[in-house]
């Protein structure tokens, strides 16, 4: 197995990977704000109806939202990979433990495991279940002593996909134009080495066609300058699509670069696994830090502090306001006065929003209708 040295900026070091470091021209990315997710599952159902409602796809949910900590899809997926890796250590923001590639058993590409069929059966297990129970006389603190939050997940379209690395037929490829990771449906033979290797378990097997499938980042939409289904249907407006660059290429006018590299408020999921995943999360402000450090890395404390001060920073507030504001892809954005604007790749303004909802105060008595206004119903 080839072992090339590649740079992983999330780990602040080099690591091994079976292929050379070749970054796409642009990298598909998204940011999910877990502080706003209510687990309504609209994203889940949108993706299901768009892509995985066919025969053999019954257990597939390319997008899912799981409650943490007792929710999983598939069962125990993150517990298992963390256990396989053992202790994971960061030192001053640099990951000094092993990635799944570095921890791979001999002759294998990555440390991994194959879930059993029943592990996929109950996608909404653990919904709303908190860690701990509330005693008499208890009151809320930040962080919550008894806590839960919602973690929406799709394929991370990783820079260093384990699925791609594991496939002996090279049936998985990462697109040069946008970094979207796809399975060539005519080349796949259903060996499921990819299922075994992906630590996020976002490659799924179709027993009818006997080949594997995964989130395709709604690439027809992306090619047409739009954001994905799961992102645009989110009623809580917690998600934003965009292009991400490496820290040295970061563009402060790009909303993703701004939130990930400048404000450092959006973090990767289990970065210690080593795949450089490209879905970034604003961590939940009310959850105890040790659990969050395990999930999002050492940057959580600062991210939460920054997020909670958003109201003091108009530019930051403006970028957050753009989430869910348009189905079109936002390439650049800025804030002028009390308004935030999003622009497409050609620099055309596609959306403009006020930072605060305008407030109108109307008279108690409406003279025209000779009726009184109430502030209910």
């Amino acid at each position: 197995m080839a072992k090339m040295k590649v740079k992983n900026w999330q780990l602040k070091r080099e690591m091994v990977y079976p292929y050379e470091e070749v970054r796409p021209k642009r990298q598909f990315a998204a940011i999910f704000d877990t502080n706003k997710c209510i687990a309504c599952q609209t994203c889940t159902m949108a993706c299901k109806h768009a892509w995985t409602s066919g025969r053999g796809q019954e257990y597939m949910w390319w997008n899912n939202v799981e409650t943490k900590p007792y929710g999983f899809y598939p069962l125990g997926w993150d517990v298992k990979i963390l256990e396989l890796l053992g202790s994971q250590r960061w030192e001053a923001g640099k990951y000094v433990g092993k990635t799944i590639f570095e921890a791979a058993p001999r002759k294998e590409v990555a440390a991994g495991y194959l879930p059993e069929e029943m592990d996929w059966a109950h996608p909404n297990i653990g919904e709303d279940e908190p860690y701990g129970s509330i005693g008499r006389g208890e009151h809320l603190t930040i962080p919550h002593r008894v806590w839960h939050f919602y973690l929406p997940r799709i394929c991370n379209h990783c820079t260093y996909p384990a699925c791609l690395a594991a496939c002996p037929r090279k049936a998985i490829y990462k697109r040069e134009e946008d970094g979207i990771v796809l399975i060539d449906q005519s080349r796949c033979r259903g060996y499921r080495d990819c299922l075994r290797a992906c630590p996020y378990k976002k490659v799924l097997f179709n027993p009818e066609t006997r080949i594997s499938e995964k989130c395709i980042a709604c690439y027809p939409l992306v090619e047409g300058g739009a954001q994905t289904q799961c992102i645009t249907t989110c009623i809580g407006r917690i998600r934003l699509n965009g292009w991400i660059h490496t820290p040295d290429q970061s563009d402060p006018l790009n909303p993703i670069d701004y939130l990930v590299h400048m404000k450092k408020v959006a973090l990767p999921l289990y970065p210690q696994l080593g795949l450089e995943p490209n879905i970034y999360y604003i961590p939940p402000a009310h959850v105890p830090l040790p659990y969050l450090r395990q999930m999002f890395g050492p940057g959580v404390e600062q991210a939460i502090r920054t997020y909670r001060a958003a109201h003091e920073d108009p530019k930051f507030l403006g970028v957050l306001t753009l989430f869910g504001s348009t189905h079109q892809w936002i390439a650049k954005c800025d804030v002028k006065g009390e308004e935030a604007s999003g622009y497409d790749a050609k620099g055309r303004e596609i959306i403009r929003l006020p930072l605060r909802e305008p407030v109108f105060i109307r008279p108690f008595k409406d003279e025209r209708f000779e009726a009184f206004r109430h502030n209910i119903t």
Partner: protein
Amino acid sequence: MEVRQVRNVIRTWSELKETKHPRTEQGLVFQLNTPKYRHGAHTTPIDIDVISVYFGPFGDIRRHDKRSPWVGEAYANINPQDAKVYGIEDGDYIWVDADPEDRPYRGWKKTDEDYKVMRLMTRVRYFTGVPRGVLIMFFNMYQASHGSVRAHETNPDGLAKNPETNYQAMFRYGGHQSCTRAWLSPTLMTDTLVRKETFGQLIGEGYAPDIHSVVGAPKESMVKITKAEPGGIDGKGLWRPAALGYRPTYENEAMKRYLFGGYISQ
């Protein structure tokens, strides 16, 4: 239609808190609540199979456990400490019984065919967020009928769907109405009662829904619970996720370490 009249006796709180439900000695110590569920507006969690799978932790589109009435099924959230007192495990099936005076129907006998159809059986789910003494069963699922029960008991795969009408139940037996009742609000003033209209801001007089007639949902009832069947596939052993150690009170060592972020070494 069954009718039952109750007295409306007013007490101060200090008097009320000393009273006990008259059926407490018979084990009716749980308050059963039937709130609305976030994934359903009206019947959407049950009309659509993909949403029904998300209706709680027991949804399984391939129905590995042939006892499942459909791809999703009814369940009661229970505080784990309460469950353990009754020897009930996470994922087990239980019987839920309310006031025997008139639930599931007046004059029931254990040997009635109707009793078999109408006695509530449901899955149980450990939920630490539920207070002691409370059962929460989410609302809006199609209850068992004679046809669905017949199908459930005769279909080789256990599907609780009446073949003659295509009625698909999400309960194996019974339903919320096996335990809950609607109560007419006590008021002697009907024709002359001045009140707000049901919709909008106008004030009117006389009969209006929600003031004079049956309140819809949710409903509640005092109930007792009994273990019916183990939660494991086809009635053997623990429900799989509990057996594997990913459920509250059943956590395996890795799960325990995971819960407090123990995989990051400082």
